[in-house]
């Protein structure tokens, strides 16, 4: 199955203009976390906050909607949000926590919940886990190398990064420019090449841009908890939805990419195993 277990898939976006303005796609992550915070479903959220260094995110414990929204937008480099989970539960005193992560990070969280070694009374405090689709992620030095070396810009100048239509896009004050994805190959972290999960199959809710039009997101609800929160947010008018069948390019493209990632990953796993290298899957 390309998408893992899910209840429903829709195209959606946040109705709040302030979120639309800063969000990567439909603003689903920020809108859901803000809604959950305001409804006391969560007491805080761990997100990828900005730092003084351009495009160097840092896991951040957000306690207000403003802090959640300040961390909106995709950073194409690592933000290991789980690293602050324990602190969020302990010194921050949060008993209900929301977080967001790439599929591999969600896998880590679920593992933590299944085998809570050193996370006693910690992993059970996760009340909302939002997964974002992911084809690969880059070390920050990789980003710097191709943004500077291949796109004639600098990280400090880039306002937005995005991946779509076969290209890696940057927007700087002068222009928007794209770099063919084959030019970024080899710069991703090595683990991504054996990753089989495109759509965060283990999250409560997972979301990404692929499948939906610009400014909208594709959303899977997966767990009872995730579906309840998403439905409530839609009913509260915080999020608006459209059936997947009504939008372009639709699920077909997403399915192609999700299956493509699995095929490529399995091939790479086989190659590594044949060389006598270890494989986690």
């Amino acid at each position, binding site marked *: 199955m390309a998408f893992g277990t899910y209840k429903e898939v829709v195209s959606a976006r946040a109705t709040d203009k302030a979120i639309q303005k800063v969000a990567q796609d439909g603003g689903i992550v920020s809108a859901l976390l803000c809604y959950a915070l305001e409804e006391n479903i969560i007491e805080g959220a761990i997100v990828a906050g900005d730092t003084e260094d351009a495009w160097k995110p840092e896991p951040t414990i957000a*306690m207000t909607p403003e802090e959640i929204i300040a961390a909106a937008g995709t950073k194409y480099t690592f933000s290991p949000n789980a690293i602050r989970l324990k602190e969020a539960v*302990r*010194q*921050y*005193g949060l008993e209900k926590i929301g977080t967001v992560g790439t599929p591999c990070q969600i896998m880590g969280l679920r593992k933590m919940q299944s085998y809570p070694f050193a996370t006693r009374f910690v992993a059970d405090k996760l009340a909302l886990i939002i997964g974002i689709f992911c084809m690969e992620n880059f070390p920050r030095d990789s980003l710097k190398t191709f943004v500077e070396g291949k796109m004639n810009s600098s990280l400090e100048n880039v306002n937005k990064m995005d991946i779509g239509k076969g290209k890696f896009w940057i927007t700087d004050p002068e222009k928007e420019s794209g770099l063919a994805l084959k030019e970024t190959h080899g710069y991703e972290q090595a683990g991504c090449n054996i990753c089989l999960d495109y759509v965060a199959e283990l999250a409560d809710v997972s979301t990404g841009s692929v499948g939906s039009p610009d400014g909208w997101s594709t959303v899977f609800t997966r767990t009872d908890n995730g579906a309840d929160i998403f439905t409530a947010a839609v009913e509260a008018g915080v999020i608006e939805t459209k059936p997947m069948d009504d939008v372009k390019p639709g699920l077909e493209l997403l399915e192609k990419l999700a299956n493509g990632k699995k095929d490529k990953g399995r091939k790479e796993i086989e190659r590594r195993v044949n060389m006598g290298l270890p494989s986690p899957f």
Partner: protein
Amino acid sequence: MSDKIVISPTSRQEGHAELVMEIDDEGIVTKGRYFSITPVRGLEKMVTGKAPETAPVLCQRICGVCPVPHTMASVEAMDDSLDIEIPKAAALLRELTIASSNLNSHAIHHFLVAPDFVPEDLFKTAVDSVGTIRKNAQYVVDMVAGEGIHPSDIRIGGMARNLSELARKKLYTRLKALVPVVDNHVELMTNLILEKDIPEGLGAITAPVFASDVIYGKREFFDLDRFTEIVPELWYDDPEIGKRACTTVPLYDGLNVETGPRARLDKFQGYKEKGVVAQHLARAREMKTYLSRAIAILDELDTAANTLADFDPRGTNKLGIGVVEAPRGTDIHMAQVKDGKTAFYSALVPTTWNIPTMGPATEGFHHEWGPHVIRAYDPCLSCATHVMVVDDEDGSVVKNEMVRI
């Protein structure tokens, strides 16, 4: 006719120990000897030669009952060796941690002695309140020190992090709500202890009290010059016991001492009752002291303040002393750091102080009361045990030689 009663291992305490009582025709104890038979500890050797930060992490594994006081005494010793003055907020957080951890530990002791004092119809009530107290007290340790069992955030130089305002308020509210639970529990236990037909004067001894502080512990208290340590062969007048005992015998001014809740109350609050009943009552009374101090700290804590001092980890080989009042008494760790490595380490833990005192405390009463006397000290043996050289083949002590660490 004289006879010998041997209880091995003594029960409802942590670790393994043996109580040997010589009795007369009436069954009255004429000579009591109590000694540890828990296998070696050896942590002092393990931390030597490693970075100073290793010591608190390993030393908290000395004991599963008091990981928190051992961590604390360890960082206190390191702070002293490295000449660090920790920030005020860190000192408050450390005291909050000890107050909560000791409250939890005293509650556990009520589990252990419940069969001695609590009648069947009140058993559930007592055990439920012990559960509630423990849960809340450990929650505080979790939050402040990062982990209830092996706290990760008690650091050389202070505490890893301060609390958030939200956490401070939550803990304050929780502990406020715990006050009536602790009050009722202490009243219940106090009445049950007083109602029990314990013979007058049971366990009363003349050993001096050994205590550094009402709650947290004070480094200045411990004067190394007044301290000596002898091997068990020199202490126990029975050579067989001298050989099998696993702890050295620490003496202060050349005398064995009593440490723990009663000793603290005796020294600092004018509480002069002695013996088993007094020890139980003192322990119960301390639960209230700990809780009210924890609440006061949460009230005054500045959550925006820094909690970790900058320091130079290289060290000057200064002998650092850490003194913490653990539930069972004064816990002392000593450390020397030189060239960024621990050059010397030693832990003098509460039960080790009490071991030579507990045996004689059984004397003069029927041997059936012996275990009660021991339990009143709430001994915890795993931390008390030192290293000795044994023959691999027959397990005997080699050449009566104890490795002094």
